[in-house]
Structure formats: structure tokens, C-alpha cells
């Protein structure tokens, strides 16, 4: 069995598969395993899986210690191509090019960050504009500050955490700009990253222009209307040498996108199986998760299913899950009656009290916002089609 990507999903998949008796090769293109966790030095990881609060590197270390020693790990190894019909993959590393064959494969390549360039903001193209992950890697792994005075665009979790991180390392952080009327990240991060240090949050605002060359000098921000159009006369200038953008994650699905069904991410069933029988996927390459605990849970499940398939003990069904009222994002795409169903959803709008319906099950929930993913676990519903909806009550 081959696992591509050794972040949380891939490590958990390797563990799940090995425990079911598969011989596993786990590959990652970085020099270490753990993926993005290694640069997320803040705490808050592992509350569900380990019942304690860990930092990213600690969560990675815990998960690594769960991987049985017979799993073969290759770092610095890039999966260049997957040939699904022949069940083989081409790997590239410093040692050269290698071809491996597999019975089943778990694709766990995670996500990349949406870049500032893709936002088509007018102005110069100066140095000093970073994605939040780039700034995080610079500060936490390499030991450099990205600049002296920063503005953050996007209030997703990484943006909020980087606002605090830059502030604590002695940079001036003039604010966080969010085009939505509510914060994009977890509420605890708004509190402990911004409110704790009096960093202003500008909701319903966006960056309309950047100025300066070769280094960023000025960022112009304006209020936006309900359609995200800047409102004339509301412009405000920030004199900064650094702009950190945290404007969303995009699943890295390129290697399989030609032959498995994809939407924004790789579509999977509740057992982690894609539309191609021998290929499974888990983690942020399928949908963007809030919590690494969920990623590890889904990775482990995908690994177990893939191992059973390799042994010829997995049937694999894909019954439809229908997205009903009130649901903005729904995961997984299909359900497999052989495993308990874990549904992940994001609501369309904030709701104080709501009723979540998953097939015949009804679950009461409070305080829902689109920024926070809801996880509902139910027994297999035994219906030919499951509908998921959320109604405000």
C-alpha cells in the first residue's frame, strides 16, 4: 500500500493500514514527516484525539509514535505520477526515479494557500507580501521576521495566529482585514490572538490596492457592500512593509484529478474511497478541515479501508449524501454502510440554535457559524440516500 503525503492524514492512514496488516510505504516531499504541523507551533491541537492540548509539533510526534515500525517511510520523495489502471506510481527523490506498484493507495497531499496574486488586486507587485503559511515558516522554522510593520488580509485561523505571532516577535501589527461580516477563523482565535493584544479586526473590509516598489509601502483598504464591492469614500491607508494574506486553502489534487471525481477537493465516501476503487483520500485534499483531530480520524479510516481492499476484504459502496437546506459545505460525498457515518458540514449563515438532520437522525446544535465546521457521527443510516440539512429553530 502506498500513502502519498505524511501530514496528519497520511500518518494516520499509514497507522490504520499497518494495523490491518498491510505493508505500507509512506512518502513525503519534505525532509521530515508531520507536514504543516511542524510549523504550527501554537497549541490547541489534539483535544479530541488525545484529550489534551498539544502544539503542532507535539501532535505530529504523538501521531508518529503511533505508526508501527514496519511502515516504510521515505522523506524527500515526491510522487510524480500515479497510473491508476496499472496500479503503479513514479516517485522521485535524490536517489533517482523509482517505480512502485500498489494494491491500494491513500492520497493525502493536503492543501496549498490561495495566493495574493490570484486575488487580482491592482497596484505594484512589491516584495513584502506573504501568504500566512510562508510567514509562519519564516518565523517559526527559519528564524526570520518578514518585516517590521504588518497588515493581515483574511481572518482565517492561520491569519489570526500569524497576527499574534508577529506581534509577539516584536513586529507592529496594524490590523486584520476580513471581507465577510464575521471572522473566518475559530472564535477562540479571535479572542486569544487579536482581542488579547488589542489588534483591530476590520470586518466587511478588503484590500483594494497595494503601493510601493521594490518593497511594499502602503496598503489601501476599503469597506465592502454585501456583494464584496468596495464602497467609494471609505478608503483608508495603512503604511506597512508587510502584507500577510490568509485567504483560503486549495486542496492539492493535481496528481489524481484526471481520473478521480473531484469538486474543490477529491470526492470520497465515508470510508475514504474515491470514485476509483483502489484509490482512497483523506485530509485537506478532500475538504478543508478546521481541526487536525478530524483529519487524523478520517486518515486512519481511509488507511484501514485501503488495507482491507488490498486484502480483498472490502466491498466499498457509494450511496449518495444529499446536501439539503442551510448547508454550505458537506463532506463526505457518499456514504458506505459498512462504516459508521461521520458527517462534516459548514452552515450557510450564523445560527444561534439549530436542528441538524442526518437521514433519520436529528441533532440539536447551538451557536453555529460558517467559520466552524460541525462534525456529526451517526450509526450507518441504512437508507439508500441520506439527506443532510440544518434549520434554525
Amino acid at each position: 500500500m502506498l500513502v502519498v503525503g505524511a501530514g496528519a492524514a497520511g500518518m494516520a492512514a499509514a497507522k490504520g493500514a499497518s494495523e490491518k496488516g498491510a505493508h505500507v510505504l509512506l512518502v513525503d516531499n519534505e525532509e521530515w514527516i508531520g507536514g504543516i504541523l511542524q510549523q504550527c507551533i501554537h497549541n490547541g491541537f489534539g483535544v479530541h484525539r488525545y484529550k489534551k492540548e498539544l502544539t503542532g509539533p507535539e501532535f505530529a510526534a504523538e501521531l508518529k509514535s503511533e505508526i508501527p515500525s514496519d511502515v516504510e517511510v521515505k522523506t524527500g520523495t515526491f510522487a510524480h505520477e500515479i497510473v491508476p489502471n496499472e496500479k503503479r506510481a513514479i516517485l522521485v527523490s535524490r536517489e533517482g526515479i523509482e517505480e512502485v506498484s500498489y494494491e491500494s493507495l491513500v492520497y493525502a497531499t493536503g492543501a496549498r494557500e490561495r495566493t495574493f496574486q490570484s486575488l487580482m488586486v491592482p497596484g505594484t507587485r512589491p516584495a513584502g507580501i506573504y501568504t500566512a503559511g510562508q510567514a509562519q515558516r519564516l518565523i517559526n522554522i527559519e528564524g526570520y521576521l518578514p518585516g517590521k510593520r504588518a497588515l493581515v488580509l483574511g481572518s482565517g485561523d492561520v491569519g489570526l495566529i500569524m497576527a499574534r505571532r508577529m506581534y509577539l516577535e516584536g513586529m507592529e501589527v496594524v490590523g486584520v482585514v476580513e471581507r465577510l461580516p464575521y471572522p473566518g477563523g475559530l472564535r477562540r482565535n479571535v479572542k486569544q490572538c487579536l482581542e488579547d493584544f488589542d489588534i483591530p479586526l476590520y470586518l466587511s473590509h478588503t484590500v483594494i490596492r497595494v503601493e510601493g516598489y521594490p518593497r511594499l509601502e502602503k496598503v489601501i483598504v476599503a469597506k465592502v457592500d454585501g456583494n464584496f464591492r468596495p464602497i467609494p469614500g471609505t478608503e483608508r491607508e495603512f503604511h506597512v512593509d508587510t502584507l500577510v494574506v490568509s485567504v483560503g486553502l486549495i486542496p492539492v489534487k493535481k496528481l489524481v484529478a484526471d481520473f478521480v471525481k473531484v469538486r474543490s477537493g477529491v470526492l470520497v465516501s465515508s470510508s475514504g474511497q474515491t470514485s476509483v476503487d483502489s484509490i482512497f483520500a483523506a485530509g485537506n485534499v478532500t475538504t478543508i478541515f478546521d481541526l487536525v483531530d478530524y483529519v487524523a480520524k478520517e486518515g486512519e479510516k481511509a488507511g484501514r479501508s485501503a488495507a482491507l481492499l488490498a486484502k480483498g476484504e472490502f466491498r466499498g459502496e457509494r450511496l449518495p449524501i444529499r446536501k439539503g437546506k442551510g448547508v454550505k459545505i458537506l463532506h463526505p460525498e457518499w456514504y458506505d454502510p459498512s462504516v459508521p457515518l461521520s458527517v462534516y458540514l459548514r452552515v450557510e449563515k450564523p445560527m444561534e440554535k439549530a436542528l441538524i438532520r442526518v437521514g433519520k437522525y436529528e441533532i440539536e446544535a447551538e451557536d453555529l457559524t460558517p467559520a466552524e465546521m460541525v462534525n456529526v457521527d451517526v450509526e450507518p443510516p441504512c437508507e439508500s440516500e441520506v439527506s443532510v440539512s440544518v434549520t434554525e429553530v
Partner: protein
Amino acid sequence: MGKAKRIEKIKCIRCPLGCTLKIKISEDGIEIEGNRCPRGVEFAMQELKDPMRILTTSVKVVGGKLPLVSVKTSGTVPRSKIHDLMGHIKKIKIRAPIKIGDVIEKNILGLGVDLVATRDCDER
């Protein structure tokens, strides 16, 4: 039940669930609602008295494969002390190898918690 003098809403940060805690302060005492576990009550009471946080940052490494190693305080520290702590931690240099869980500095600034490594760092 006395009249509520003051109602405050705060976000519990003890775990990623982020419960909205309603703190009702009245003549009869303090009442907390909205918590999904007992840690919420604990958090709200502490937040009223003196907000406490775990600090995570990094320290410089000498002779390591990585230039930095990530660290955390072994327990919570007063939020008001975070600036002093950052200033102090900035001056620390530690020699590789470092193991996850190693104590970098005991009883840092006399706050009753240790500074511990959260990652391994091998010798270069």
C-alpha cells in the same frame, strides 16, 4: 435571585470548540452559562480575575539541524507577563541536541512554570 448587574459574553479558549460563555454578575454572585464542560466555568472565573495563557514561541539553537526549536510554557502564565516572557526568551540560546519535552528553563521568571521544547532538534 438578585438582579443581574452586569452580563458579559466571552469566548472560552480552553479548547477549539470555543463555547460562548455568558457571565452574569449580580449581588448574589457569579453565574456562568453556555459552557459545554466544567473547564468553561474555571476559565470564566480565571478570566475575570487574571487572564492566563499558555505561551508558545521558539528559542535559538546552537549547532542544530534547525536554527530554532519550538517551545511552550508547561502551564498557563498571566497574560500580563507575556511581554516580559518574550523579552526573556529572546535572549535564550540552547545547544543541540534537544528532545521534545526537554526543560529549556526551569521556573521561568519565577512564574512557577517551565519552558519546555515541543520538538526534537538533532545536532548538525
